[in-house]
């Protein structure tokens, strides 16, 4: 473990101001009754106590981004075409250039992008938009000292002080945070004078983490969920029961730090246009609707089955048993109908087929 340094609460504003010189800085702010990640402004406040309503995935996977733009033109009359004009298209790629620091995410939120990476950055295919953002975004996360009733990070391979996906991990202590560099880029940021190597509160920090771990209680063992969910694939009544109260909206997917599905659509204005990528929602009927009007996931039961199956079965099967969930609990906490994904997976694990 690298050396811990102390970052005083009262220095955070000034520290973030220094970051603004080179980076876009995203921080959790109170907006209305929600806490959302927004650009930090000089002298602006921060909300570091409440768990942010939205996840910090917006930093590496924005709600909407322009992949490319195009202009439709007509060439000058061509002799070889018998003096006719020829239609032309000018295509421009828009790769992200920003450098971003996310300050104040929880470890579960920072972990989200590592779930993306296994899909967006493989031998076979590289998503240049995500990769550019991921490689130019630093996460300064705050270890969780107040797990909520909806939290289950320890059940999906995380923990209140898990540093996966973070560059610096801060652990809250009296009057500030003990900071620990996780990556070299993080260590570099910690060379700032705002980080004080003289103050040591390692024991207090340790106690904070242990308290949080205790509060999270016994982790749920999801290891056999992979096979159990597959086994239940054709069990319509099971999925109908699990999805009965679901209203098939996108709250769970859009707040999820690990949900990575997207849509691509073209938008035009006159002769110019753009191809945009937007978050998409597997719980939506149109997500899989084919032009022929056939829809392989025509009911919310089928859609929820795919959502849960993807996170707890298909993704782990494809990616060395990693569950595509970071246990932040946003999908439970913000669900208008209080659908609880932990309970669904548990029901699948405990399901005994009386007909077999």
């Amino acid at each position: 473990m690298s050396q811990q340094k102390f970052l005083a609460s009262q220095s955070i504003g000034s520290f973030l101001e220094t970051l603004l010189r080179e980076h876009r800085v995203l921080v959790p702010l109170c907006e209305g009754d929600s806490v959302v990640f927004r650009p930090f402004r000089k002298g602006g406040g921060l909300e570091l106590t409440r768990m942010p309503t939205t996840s910090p995935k917006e930093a590496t996977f924005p709600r909407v981004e322009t992949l490319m733009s195009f202009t439709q033109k007509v060439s000058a009359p061509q002799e070889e075409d018998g003096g006719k004009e020829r239609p032309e298209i000018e295509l421009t790629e828009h790769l992200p250039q920003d450098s971003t620091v996310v300050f104040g995410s929880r470890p579960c939120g920072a972990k989200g992008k590592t779930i993306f990476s296994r899909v967006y950055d493989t031998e076979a295919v590289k998503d240049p938009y995500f990769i550019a953002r991921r490689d130019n975004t630093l996460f300064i996360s705050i270890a969780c000292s107040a797990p909520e009733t909806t939290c289950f990070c320890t059940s999906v391979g995380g923990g209140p002080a898990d540093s996966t996906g973070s560059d610096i991990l801060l652990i809250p202590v009296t009057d500030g945070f003990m900071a620990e560099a996780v990556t070299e880029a993080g260590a570099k940021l910690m060379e700032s004078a705002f980080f004080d190597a003289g103050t040591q509160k390692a024991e207090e920090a340790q106690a904070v983490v242990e308290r949080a771990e205790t509060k999270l209680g016994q982790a749920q063992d999801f290891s056999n969920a992979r096979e159990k969910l597959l086994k239940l694939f054709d069990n319509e009544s099971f999925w109908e029961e699990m999805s009965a109260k679901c209203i098939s909206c996108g709250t769970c997917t859009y707040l999820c730090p690990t949900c990575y599905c997207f849509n691509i659509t073209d938008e035009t204005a006159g002769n110019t246009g753009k191809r945009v990528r937007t978050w998409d929602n597997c719980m939506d009927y149109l997500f899989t609707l084919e032009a022929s009007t056939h829809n392989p996931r025509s009911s919310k039961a089928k859609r929820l089955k795919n959502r849960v199956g993807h996170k707890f079965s298909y993704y782990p099967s494809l990616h060395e048993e990693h569950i595509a969930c970071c246990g932040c609990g946003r999908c439970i906490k913000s669900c208008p109908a209080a659908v609880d994904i932990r309970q669904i997976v548990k029901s699948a694990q405990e399901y005994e087929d009386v007909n077999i």
Partner: protein
Amino acid sequence: MSTFNPYLPELATIQEIIQETHNIKTFRVVLNDEEKMKNFSFEPGQVGQLSVFGVGESTFVINSPPTRMDYLQFSVMKTGEVTERLHALNEGDQIGVRAPLGKCFPYEEMKGKDIIFIGGGIGMAPLRTLLLYMLDNRSDYGDISLLYGARTPNDMAYSYELEEWLSRDDMKTTLTIDAEYPDWQHKVGLIPNVLLEMNPSPKNCIAVTCGPPIMIKFTIQALTKLGFEDSQIVTTLEKRMKCGVGICGRCNIGTSYVCKDGPAYTYEQLKQLPNEL
């Protein structure tokens, strides 16, 4: 340094448009970048995403074989927003092409075997690629037969090639339509029934079938009845697709992403996937 962007289409020009049926058009397309067109390589069964800029993209199989590279050919049935706009384009118009995507037919494993193609309607498109590829590498394969059916003679794509296929002595072609039609010289009957009547031997044979889902379902039943093993049946799947590279999340059946792991599957592989077609 610029990295390869899998979302960025190559600009291409529509060289020729063929009206196949009342709702199917075939587009012969060349990439604008001559170097890229020259070096373009793909395998039979792989697909491409065609862009109409301002409207969007849609997935189609490349139905010209890699052995005939003067152009890339795509056949498009008018069913949705992108296909409607494609149908409105003219020769010389510009589109985008992202290709090749997906996996090919197991044409290497098929070498030395007898092949029976069973195509219905627009489902003939992917079979055409493989059929022409095999005809161009004729000595690699055993007997080749084709059963091609459509609702009526007017719904039969590639009608201008059928005479040649019928007259070739190195393949056997059977055509069928669903119901009696004036002046029709060939079979009348649904594809699975005609197939049973043809009674092909499953011995050392691979069946490749594509068409509407209901036709595929009954054709596979017929093939099984004829004694074909699951591993001897190859078909292709269709799903709504966006990214085409296995990321965007809508075309999966369990762990298999049709855009990158398909669209060609053996029936044996399909049976191992969850039932979500």
